[in-house]
């Protein structure tokens, strides 16, 4: 038996398998946003279909869920009913706000009429707010605590579990 082959082989193999094993279960797509832990960028945008301006600072004092979406995005259709239902459920403890970008006003209105909503939706016409939040693609959702600090961020469509898990982080204990 060749002991050195055995020894070198086992060391390399064990190290490789251990590293790969530790990598399992992590989602590399979940890139941590540098904004997490920082105050949420401030914006004041027009509500869709009205001339009312919604200012994010008016939500201070209560946790806020900001959801970036668009009517041309398939996964946004998927998550919409989940957001609407949860916004109703958590109406007393948290606020929800939809931010639409790169979209047409009439399309947004007909989408909301057909599918309903339970929270305000604002239009990010120039896409400046999306850029300030570092939105890579819709849908993306930010969880902001009562002090206006971003606590968590989720890329991709919302599921009831992901929503609940992240809400727990911003709701007062």
């Amino acid at each position, binding site marked *: *038996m*060749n*002991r050195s*082959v*055995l020894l070198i*082989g*086992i060391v390399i*193999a064990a190290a*490789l*398998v251990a*590293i*790969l*094993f*530790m*990598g*399992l279960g*992590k*989602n*590399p*797509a979940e*890139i*941590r946003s540098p904004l997490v832990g920082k105050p949420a960028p401030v914006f004041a945008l027009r509500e869709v279909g009205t001339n009312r301006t919604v200012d994010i600072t008016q939500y201070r004092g209560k946790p806020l869920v900001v959801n970036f979406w668009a009517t*041309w*995005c*398939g*996964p946004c259709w998927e998550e919409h009913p989940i957001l609407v239902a949860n916004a109703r459920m958590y109406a007393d403890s948290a606020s929800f706000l939809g931010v639409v970008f790169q979209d047409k006003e009439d399309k947004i209105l007909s989408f909301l009429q057909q599918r309903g909503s339970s929270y305000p939706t604002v239009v990010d016409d120039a896409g400046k707010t999306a850029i300030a939040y570092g939105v*890579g*693609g*819709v*849908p993306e959702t930010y969880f902001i605590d009562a002090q206006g600090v971003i606590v968590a961020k989720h890329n*991709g469509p919302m599921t009831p579990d992901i929503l609940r898990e992240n809400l727990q982080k911003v709701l007062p204990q």
Partner: protein
Amino acid sequence: MIPALGRLLILGSLLAAAAGAILGFAAGRTRSAEGLKWARRFAYLYSGLIVSAALLMVYALLAHDFSVSYVAQVGSRSVPTWVTIVSLWSSLEGSILFWGLVLGTYIGAATFLTRNRYEEYQPDAIGVWLACAAFFSFLIAGPANPFHTVPSPPLDGPGPNPLLQNHILMAIHPPFLYLGYVGFTIPFGFACAALLKGRLGHNVLKPLRESLMLSWIFQTVAIMLGGWWAYEVLGWGGYWAWDPVENASLLPWLTATAALHSIMVVERRGILKGWTITLVQATFLLVILGTFMTRSGVFNSVHSFKQSAIGPTILGFLAVSLLFVIGLLAFRIDKLEPEGRLEGAASREAMFLLNNLAFVLLTFTVLIGTVFPLIVEAMKGKQMSVGRPYFDSMTVPLGALLLFLLGVGPALPWGRASREQVKKALIPPIAGAAVFTLIGYALGVRSPWTLITLAFGGYAAQVTLSQMFLPMIQRMRNGEPLGSALIDGQLRRGRRRFGSYIVHAAVVLVIIAIAISSSMRTQLELHFVKGQTLKAAGYDVTFVGVEQRTEPHRLSTIGTFNIVKDGKPLTTLTPRMNQYQMMREPIGTPDVHSTAARDFYIALSNVDAAAETASISVFVLPMVMWIWLAVIAMALGALFGLIPSRRVILSAAKDPVPEGATETA
């Protein structure tokens, strides 16, 4: 109906593979002719069952049978037929079934082609192949089952991943990759069989080398097609990004290339036996590692499949395979006795050894760069990525060293050489080096690494070309006319030698083209309003307009640009943005005008159909076309070398029955 039949076929293939593997290993121990015969029958049975299962899935996809879970997941009535067929490997479960299809074909063919030969090694080789096959059938039967029954089938499905629908190359790149990847199982079987027997004789070297070479050819083409696809689709003007999964396809290619060289040293000198076997086994292990990388969701890449439970299963298989290989090597490597020794430092075999060390170093460099982010995250909890600078700074010098060896190695004679011989061999090609460097300098090359590449490339080109036609020239010196000297010296005899020099010449071209295209590229961003003409690196680009086209599965925004060079209209390019129904972000498709000298490449970075404005990235990339052409030449050269010469066919027929083997019918 189809789901149940599919599950039955997979289960059958699992049983056939498991039984055949056990029979094969048993026959290897007892040397029973009857056992080998049955192992072969099970290999054929496995092959038939798994191929049928895959074909059944193709049928289900074409018939839009949404009661099959995989069809419900990736099928769609609105996509073209070629996309439907491509769907077979577009998603996780199907890709493993496709793996089974390729493995089944390989095992069936390898068993058949070696049926009356190499009887000493065949039982164990079949055992190893079918053991791997059993694992993949287990994967298909359990964690990655594509044949679940959908209780209430939907009327239509979402269609495959849009990236795969975006370009026809996606119908070609994955099959080649699988033919390469999966094919490495066959030489792995021969290598393990040789270790189990404790002998690496000449008769097992031949099937080992040929099966390795065949997979290597597929892998070479697959890597090129992947680069070409990235170039044509991803829109950043490059073809290689050191993405973890690109690296995963490169790693086994590197060790396989090293093994193909060290096999020659075993043939000629009877040394480096254990080393060669280790390289062949490492190639297979790196294939499994690559499979894990793409399918575990551990690495983020354009190639990744969704996260899944099959990651741990493949990791388990990798761990078991590693243990098997290490154990086998530890217990048997000392039995492979060398028949000679290294003669001198300035010999061809010494250059082979250096070449092998450089390839292995390159493999480790790429492997460490690929898994390093995982190490850092495990230790410090910080996310990071290893980028281009690391890979470039490490691989460019090693690549240059390999190019240097590619010139020096074939110039040196085998065995001991006198000082005079060495001088006579090594000095003349300096002329080639000088010519290439001067031409490059005259054409504007200033980057030191590119100039070094040209010098080594010129040296290697002269050595390669003079070696390539040596048989013909010798015949002509002996008075043969050009025609018969060409046919007898190059085409009819010594095909393997001629073929490998074609590969070498093509490699020189590939490396030079890569060096030039990456060091001499021009890149700029342009912003247009409709009708505007802007200058870009000697071209005049006019934005003609933008058009939106709706297809059932996607919405395309297409920009039209007229390209004029030196006052003459050159071409019209139409880069586009495709928005697929089920996708978050749009996918661009650049448009390229290719010539032998350079490519003019534009990609839309932003387009507004209403305002009729567009922003584009423009790339001018010299010599890119030569990369694709030269890689095809590499594959053809290697393929030519695989065609048996007349002499070899005769000698194979006269091969004596190897010692210790039992005669079979």
